[in-house]
Structures are given as structure tokens and as C-alpha cells.
């Protein structure tokens, strides 16, 4: 859900922007989870979580603004918040929200692990910030993230209880009660995924260098072909009698 910041990454402002979008993405995930939740209590829990994540996204942009004011880096146009970037940057999958793709238990497990990971990422990030106002802001966000992880644990317990009530399977409840080891496993799995994302991100830049000349070659060939294609002119024509199956 969130990209771990590169400890040696010089682009602090860029990292802050990524964090802000990650928080914004989480807010959307939580809101959609609220809409799908069957119990009013769970629904409210997700909405409260979403409220925090929206606030965090706003605060991170404020931290970014503080850094610019303090002369740490220069503001770039791509730092300006644009909601659609949350999709373009991959923090929300346009093919489906997590709650649509995962069963509820797995979804909560995912949230739990990622909230802990977020806390860890914020730890790294706060070490690179020098002004006290921004450090405080980040500290508050970190506390919230830990709170969310606790909420998730409580939610898991609630879900288990609900299952117990629904199915009357007392024994199963005790057997399947979420053990610490299982959470640790989920935590490690998410951490590994995050590392893989970072690996991919770093190598993407390298791969771009290799594939750019190939793309240029393809454009050279196809560009000439494109130039030869004629697009029909519709002037003076009755548009209602044109071919409705045509894509050109």
C-alpha cells in the first residue's frame, strides 16, 4: 500500500509527495471498505480511519510546503496535488479496490500489516526532516498509524466474534483465533512486497534507459506509417448516416 522511503534517497520532497498519495489512497480504500461493511460499527470504524488518512495526506503536503519555505528543494509542478495521480501512481488499482479483491479477513490483515509498515516508513522519513513543526506533524501521523494497526487487530477480533455468532462454531473460533505468529507472517509478507516494489521502482529507471532506444526505433517505423493513414473528413456530411460500427 505504501512505498518505503529510500533511506539514501536525496529527493525528500518527492518522497513526501509519494507518502501523501499513499495516505490518500488508504483513505479511499477505507471509505470504500466502509461502504461495503455490513455492520454499522465496522462501517463507522472504517470512516474514522478514512478521516485520519485524508487528514494525513493534507498534513504531508503541509510538511512539503514547510520544506520548500525552509529552502530544502524547489517546488515542482508535479508536487501539486492532483487526485487522479492516486490511480496513475498505482496507490489505488483502477481494476478494483482491495476490499473488492480480498476476502474481509485478508483485507483487515493487509491493513494491519501496512499500518505497522507505514509507521516504520514514517520513522525513516522523520529522520530526514529538520524543522520541529514538521517533525511534530509526522509524529502525530505515526501515532495515528499505530492506532489504526490496533484498530485493525480489534476489528479482526470482532470479525471472528461475528463469525462465531453467525455460525455458532465456538470451537472453531478458539482454534482460528488470530495468533501472533500469523500476524507476524502477514507483516513479513507485506514487508517483502514493499521491498519488491522498491526493487522494481529502482530498476524501472534502469530498464527505461535500455528500452528508450527501442521505443524510439518503433516510433520511427510506425510514425511513418501513421503519417500515411488518412482520417475521414466529416464536413458537410450527415453524421447520423455515418457507419456506427467504425472506430475511425
Amino acid at each position: 500500500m505504501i512505498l518505503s522511503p529510500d533511506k539514501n534517497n536525496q529527493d525528500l520532497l518527492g518522497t513526501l509527495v509519494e507518502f501523501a498519495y499513499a495516505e490518500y489512497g488508504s483513505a479511499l480504500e477505507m471509505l470504500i471498505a466502509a461502504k461495503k461493511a455490513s455492520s454499522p460499527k465496522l462501517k463507522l470504524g472504517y470512516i474514522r480511519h478514512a478521516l485520519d488518512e485524508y487528514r494525513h495526506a493534507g498534513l504531508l503536503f503541509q510538511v512539503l510546503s514547510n520544506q520548500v519555505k525552509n529552502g530544502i528543494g524547489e517546488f515542482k509542478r508535479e508536487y501539486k496535488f492532483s487526485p487522479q495521480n492516486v490511480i496513475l501512481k498505482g496507490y489505488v488499482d483502477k481494476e478494483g479496490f482491495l476490499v473488492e479483491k480480498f476476502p474481509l479477513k485478508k483485507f483487515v490483515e493487509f491493513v494491519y500489516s501496512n499500518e505497522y509498515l507505514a509507521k516504520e516508513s514514517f520513522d525513516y522519513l522523520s529522520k530526514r526532516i529538520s524543522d520541529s513543526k514538521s517533525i511534530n506533524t509526522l509524529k502525530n501521523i505515526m501515532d495515528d498509524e499505530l492506532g489504526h494497526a490496533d484498530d485493525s487487530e480489534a476489528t479482526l477480533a470482532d470479525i471472528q466474534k461475528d463469525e462465531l455468532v453467525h455460525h455458532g462454531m465456538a470451537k472453531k473460533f478458539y482454534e482460528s483465533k488470530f495468533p501472533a505468529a500469523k500476524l507476524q507472517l502477514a507483516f513479513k509478507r507485506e514487508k517483502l512486497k514493499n521491498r519488491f516494489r522498491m526493487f522494481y521502482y529502482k530498476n524501472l529507471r534502469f530498464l527505461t534507459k535500455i528500452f528508450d532506444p527501442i521505443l524510439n526505433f518503433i516510433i520511427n517505423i510506425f510514425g511513418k506509417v501513421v503519417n500515411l493513414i488518412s482520417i475521414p473528413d466529416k464536413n458537410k456530411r450527415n453524421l447520423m448516416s455515418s457507419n456506427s460500427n467504425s472506430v475511425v
Partner: protein
Amino acid sequence: MYYLGISAYYHDASVALLDSDGNLVDFKKEEWLSRVKGDKSFPRQGLQELIKRYNLSEQNLVSVTFYEKPVRAWLTVLKHSVKNNPITNDLTRNYFKNAWNSSMRFHFDLSKYLNVKKITINYSEHHLSHTLSTLYYYNEFPCVSVVVDGYGDKYCTSIHHIKSHDEITNVWSSEYPNSLGLFYSAITDFLGFAVNEGEYKMMGLASFGEPKYYDNLSKTIKFDNNELKVDTKYYDYVRRTDRSYSNLLIDELKIQPRRPDIPFEVGTEDFKIYANLAASAQKLLEDLLFLVFKHAHDLTNETNFLFSGGVAMNSSAIRKTVELDFIKKLNLPPSPGDSGAAIGAAYYGFINKNKKTILKNNLNKNIFPGKIESKEDFFDLVFDKIADNNDAIEKTSEIISQDEIVATCYSNIETGPRALGHRSLICNAHKKELIKVLSSDIKKRNIFRPTAPAILKRDAENFFNLEEKLMNCYTHMATTATPKDKVLQDIEGIVHVDNTSRVQICDEDSLLGKILMSLNKYKIQVIANTSFNISSDPMVYDKEDAFLAVERMGIKYLLTETGLYKRK
């Protein structure tokens, strides 16, 4: 049997559904469901909702119509770029790299949800979809339709002569890159606002300035010999993806583009300069637009005009069309942009199959289509119900009379970009300070963005100078009006600096109409109305969004179809 229309991939994506009688039974903007403002992805959530609600399948779907010709849309810009730029330039590369993210993947995306082999798939022309989205609401023949947007599938401005439902002739058009919309967006970009989103901010800012850069901008775009021409050496939208204006435009204007992170401060020298630039672009847009309208009249001799496309959202320009004597009536759809084009696309499918049109004016009937299933099961935890649905209007009026702000999330949502009462924040418009709180503190809007008034039909003539030819436009806030001198002081809070208001005239049986009727006893004839959303979020859609928004904005009261609620 149903007719589905879809718009997607460039601006806010939408789905629209017409039934066998041509009624708009549902309409969903993807951003309402994904909660990502301006979401242009394939509208999978909207489509999934419609499939579920109406059991859509090859059994009951007559056709699915996409709002443009996908390959033509992709090829046009690419051809221009390949011809005029070095082969490996930014724009060309981007078009190649993102070919599979463009509308060319429509058929593939659709196939994930519907059996495309057994359903008729139509592709309407982009500007025809806009024209039909307007015609859908008005259905008066003959008439002329003017479509002006950034870029459709090849064309940027079109004039369609409509003699009947099956005779819509393209009598004139300007091709990419000669675009009024892209010109306006480029200046929006220059002013540090987001393209496709900040244009209305620039329109608001324009009222604070003088058109001092008019002559400079006139060198860059012209309407000469009935041809619209953009001098692209001033505009980088033909060669770059990260910026719309060129260094040559900076040199021409002799001002630096505004940095988006530095807030506007009214009264500063910078504010004046940028307001002057906005005023110049606005005036030039209006002048060129009026030349296009004149040309439309010259070509067709029609006096009944339809207007759509993204530029038709420029309510300031629309009011000034009253200066054009040859226009007897000007009609706009409630959603003139690309999302509304989904309605036009669905209508294309309807006409194509039935060879007939809908013989009535549909405007009032189709402003709040569809049905939203939204549960209030969590309301007990967060709200106190202070009035049930029988008393809610009366109680809302009482609360408004006590200078409170009320949010509405009432039944279905409006199709267009303007809040017409069902997703609104409303308060007493006779209280200037209260409106300031609503606009600046709650909505966090720039000072140069006005708040709109809503008024009953019977009172409207007493408060505003209305134009007969624009009467339909006042129904859905498509244009502005000037207030009468005698009431100016009384409603100062909803009057913009240029002495105009984007007034909404309400029917007595609409939600705002009922509230206004009830407010009569408190001597409140006008209410201030702004959209119920946080800046950078889409309009509130369901009850979860409503609660989230009242929490984030600190609003106390929420009116829904089940009653009036107060936050605990």
C-alpha cells in the same frame, strides 16, 4: 429494453442508461463511486451498478454506444505530432507508450462486464455525442448546435445543422490543434491552475482584472476567413505533456507563469497581473466564441441554438450571448462536458434503432435520474434525528433562518457539475458574513470564487435581470444574471465582483423550491447554494460520503430524504 452510453478515458467517465421509451433511467459518473475527482478510467463501478440494478445482459441491452471514435481520436493527435515534431518528442512518445491506456481499449474493457459478441456496439462521433446530449433535453427542430471543447476525435469546434433527428449535418468545424478549449486551458496552466479542473477558477479570477494582455493573446489565436487558427509556436500542448504554453508565450506576455504553490493574495501586484491575464483570455474566448456563433447563424440561418462541450461550462460567456441579436433561444444540457456525452451516446443508440426522437422537452424530468441505494444504518451512532421526513423541510427552514448552514444528501444526485439542491450546502443568502464563512472557512475556496443564489421562479424577476432567451439555462445554473439595483445590498454575499450571480431558478416542487416556499415566513427569498464536497473531492454521493464530508467540514446539519439530522 435498454440503451447504454459510455464516455471515458479523457475526462470524467460516465455511464448513461435509456429505457425503451427514451427515459434517462440512470446515470453514474465514475468519480462519484471511486471518489477520485475527475476519474477518467473506464467506468467499471458505474457499469457494474447498472448491470446489477437492471440485470443488463444481451437479453435486454439493445446497444452500447461509446461517445467517440477511439482510433480516430488517438490517430489525430499522433499524426499531427509526428508531422510537426521531431519523431522522438515527448508528446509522440507519450501517445505510443499510452496507446493501451487510451479509448482504444474500450472494447476490451467492456468485454470484462458484458458479452460484447452478442450486443451491438456503436461508436458515435465525439461532437455528435455532445450535440445529442443537448438535443435529448430539448428536442426542438430545426436548430443549430455549436460544440466547443478542447479536443474530440479530430475536431475541436463544430457547427451541426439539425433539421430532424436523423439529419444532423456537420456544416463547419475546426480541427486539432486549432482549439478554443486548449487555448483557454493553456492560460489556465500559465496561471498555475490544473488543466481540465482549474478553468472555472480562471473564469472567476477574470472578473478581478482588465483585459490588458488581449492584444498579445490575439496574436496567438484568430478567427479569420471563417477559420479558427491557433499559432502553435505559442503553445506547447502540441509537443509536450507537462506544459501547455511555450517560452514564446512567456516572452510575448513578458510575465512569468504563476507558481502553483504560492497562494493568491488579493490586492498584490502579482494578483493584479494574473487577474489581468485571466480577464484577457476570458474576453478573447468570448469574442472568438461569438464569431463562431455568428458563423453558425450565417451558415444555417437558424436562431434556435444548442451549445455544449467543455467550453459551454463558461457561464460568464453564456450570459454575454444576449448581445447576439440573431440568437432567439440558447439551450444547454445540465452536463455539457464529456461526462454528459454519455447521455448523447445512449441517445445515439436509441435513435439509430428506433429511427425516431423523443417528442418532448425532458429538462426537468431528467436532472436527477436513477436511484441510489444508500443505507443510513450507522446514522444512530453519529447523528440525532431532529425531524422526520414529514417535518424536515419546515425544520430545515427554521434552522436556516437561525443563520445555520445545512448540508443536503437528498435522494438522487444531479447529473451535471452544478449542485442543484440534492448535494448542496445551503444557507441564508441575505447574510453576507455567513456566506463568507461558508465559502472561505468551510469550503476553503479562493476569494475570487463566488457562491451562487437559488430563488423561486415567482421571486426571480424581482431580484435579477433575466434574459428570456436564456430561461432554460437558469434552471441548472448554466449562466449568470445581474441583480437588480434595489436588492443589491440585501444579497451582496452572492454577487460576484463583476456584479453577476450564477442564479438557479427553482420550481416549487423541487427540494430547494420547497425550502424556499417554507422560508417565506422568515422573509428569506434567496438561499446561497454551493456544492456539497471538499475541494479536490467529487460531489458527495451516498450517506457514507455525506457523513465523511460533514465531519471534515465541521457541518452540523444534514438533510436527507428520511429527515433532518444533527451531528452528535
